[in-house]
Each structure stands twice: as structure tokens, then as C-alpha cells.
């Protein structure tokens, strides 16, 4: 099964990322494109999931604005989280339930991608009973929240590489009080791989775990016209 990926070099604003996902979702539901994964970084933003509670926000709207952090209520599952430069966000627009690759469950697949990526850099990643995402001994490193419309997924997973963790200090991540957040940089220090290396790890494990051959494109490079129309506003 073939799929496309599009990676973005420069941070994308949350709204622009959402608009792209909605266009891809519609095109995927219509069968106009194959499964497609966006891999990007966001400009600083705090997002709340469907059931996200405001009391996990530790700042007022004005304070977030003063810090240069946008605030969004997203229509995904999961609770509050932070995105910013130095963190990869994976937005798989996948039609689930139509092939053999999804039998272990999409959520578990996303966790597996994070755990295998950690393993590439000698870090033991694990799941935690009753909580979703990927964890290390140093704290939570990948957060997950997604939505299915007509069994096409959008939203997805974020993976901390070298992002500034101060953004997470403005929230109670995923509503988990007193839980530390880690990045590859806080764990590996100067041995931290580059953003590009980690992106390639994530995409390569995505391909294996989700059983899809990836044809990779860059947002500023050549790509099929049908895709270009959807990811370039």
C-alpha cells in the first residue's frame, strides 16, 4: 500500500496546519489522494482536546499572547498539550479499517513509531498502562491525540526533539499533574541527533509500523499536482 508524506522545513502556524489537514481529509475521503502524512513543526501553540479542561491552563489568554503562544481548542481526542519549534508533529491522514495493517490499532501503532524512534538513539521508550503516548525514564516524550471522520484519521502525534520545554510549563500536559516532559536533547545532550535525522526515523518507522510504502515530498519541492493544491494554500 502506497502513501505520500510531505515534510515542512519551517514552522507552520497551527491554523494553517489544520486547514491543510481538513483539505487532505476531504480529498482522502473522496479517494482523490492516497494516505498522506504531514510532518512539521508548529509555531508556539497550546491546544486543548475535545474534553480538554481549561483548568489545565496555567496562564490567562493575555499571558499566553504576551509569551507569543497561541491558544486553540482542537477537535481531537486527548487533553491539553504544547507544540513549538524543535518538536516534530506527525499528522497522518489515513484511511483506517480498509487493510490488514491496522489490526493492532492505530493508537498502538503511533506509540510504536515513537518507541522505535527512541530506540534508534539508544533510548528505552515505553507505554504506560491506562495512559497514551510514549515515555522514557526522564519523562513523557511523545503525545497523541487524533480524530476519525469516516474512518480517515487526522491530528496525530507530537515528538519532542530539541524544543524549549518552557512552553510545557504553562500547562498541565495531558492533565497529568507532576509528570515531567522530556526531549531527545534533555536526554542525550550534545549527542542529540538533528531534526532531519529524527524526521527520517519517524517516517521510516511509520512506513514499517503502518505498513505503507512512503513516497516522500518536501513542501518546497516537486510533488504531484493533486497534493500541491492541498498543502500549498
Amino acid at each position: 500500500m502506497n502513501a505520500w508524506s510531505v515534510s515542512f522545513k519551517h514552522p507552520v502556524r497551527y491554523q494553517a496546519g489544520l486547514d491543510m489537514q481538513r483539505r487532505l481529509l476531504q480529498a482522502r475521503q473522496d479517494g482523490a489522494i492516497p494516505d498522506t502524512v504531514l510532518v512539521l513543526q508548529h509555531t508556539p501553540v497550546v491546544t486543548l482536546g475535545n474534553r480538554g479542561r481549561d483548568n489545565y491552563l496555567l496562564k490567562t489568554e493575555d499571558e499566553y499572547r504576551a509569551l507569543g503562544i497561541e491558544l486553540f481548542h482542537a477537535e481531537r481526542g486527548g487533553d491539553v498539550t504544547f507544540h513549538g519549534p524543535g518538536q516534530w508533529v506527525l499528522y497522518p491522514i489515513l484511511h483506517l479499517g480498509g487493510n490488514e495493517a491496522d489490526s493492532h490499532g492505530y493508537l498502538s501503532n503511533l506509540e510504536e513509531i515513537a518507541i522505535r524512534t527512541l530506540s534508534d538513539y539508544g533510548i528505552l521508550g515505553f507505554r504506560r498502562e491506562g495512559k497514551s503516548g510514549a515515555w522514557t525514564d526522564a519523562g513523557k516524550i511523545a503525545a497523541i491525540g487524533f480524530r476519525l471522520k469516516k474512518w480517515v484519521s487526522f491530528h496525530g502525534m507530537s515528538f519532542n526533539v530539541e524544543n524549549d520545554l518552557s512552553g510545557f510549563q504553562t500547562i498541565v500536559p495531558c492533565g497529568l499533574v507532576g509528570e515531567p516532559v522530556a526531549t531527545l536533547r534533555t536526554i542525550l545532550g550534545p549527542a542529540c541527533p538533528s531534526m532531519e535525522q529524527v524526521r527520517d526515523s519517524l517516517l521510516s518507522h511509520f512506513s514499517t509500523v503502518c505498513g505503507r510504502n512512503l513516497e516522500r515530498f518536501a513542501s518546497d519541492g516537486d510533488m504531484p499536482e493533486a497534493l500541491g493544491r492541498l498543502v500549498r494554500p
Partner: protein
Amino acid sequence: MAIPQDLFYAKTHEWVSLDGDIATVGITDFAQSQLSDLTFVELPDVGTEFNAGDEAAVVESVKAAADVYAPLSGEVVDVNPNLEDNPELINLDPFGKGWLFKMRVNNESEVDGMMDAESYEELCPEA
């Protein structure tokens, strides 16, 4: 993966059991397994009219939210009162105690457009 023989199935992984003009609607075992432990269900109001394919409900697990579509056209006449407190009934018994809502369907023959267990099984991934 359980797929009862006596139900009708939609491509979006809902099931229907038809008794006269009353259709009971739920999500399949495959659907609940993809979402893992459900924590919240948003059900339609009794009296709501749907066309087949309309968004009718939302089921949520800790990290996922999925829309549920009305498989047939008609009016909602009942919703499962136990799901508000016990959404996990959908995980435990998707084809039984985990039913979502009942509709009085406008046209019973609409069900002919749905899949039988055999066709639905072909659509589902191998367990």
C-alpha cells in the same frame, strides 16, 4: 474479531439490527478495538431526524475521537441510557449492551444498501 451474522453493516463500521421499522445502531467490534477504552459518548437527542450518512454521535477514548454516522434515514426514538456513566459497555459488548441509539427508519428497504456479515468481514483487517 466478532461479526454477528444477523446484523447489517456500514462501511464506516456501524451495525444495524432491524425489528419492523425500528433500527438499533451501534459500532462494531473492529471499531471499538481501534479506539481502545472509550471514556465518553455523545449521543443524539431523541427526536432528531437523520439522513443516512449524517453525523449522529461521537465516541471518544482517552486519545481518540471518532464520528458515528446514521446508517439509515429516520428519527431517533431512543438512546442507550447506560452509556453516559458506562461508556466502556461499548468495548465490552459492542453488539449488545453497547448499542448507541434506536431509530424509526423512513424506509426499511434502505437496509438493502448495507453489507451483510460476509461482505463486512472482507472489508475488515485480519485480526
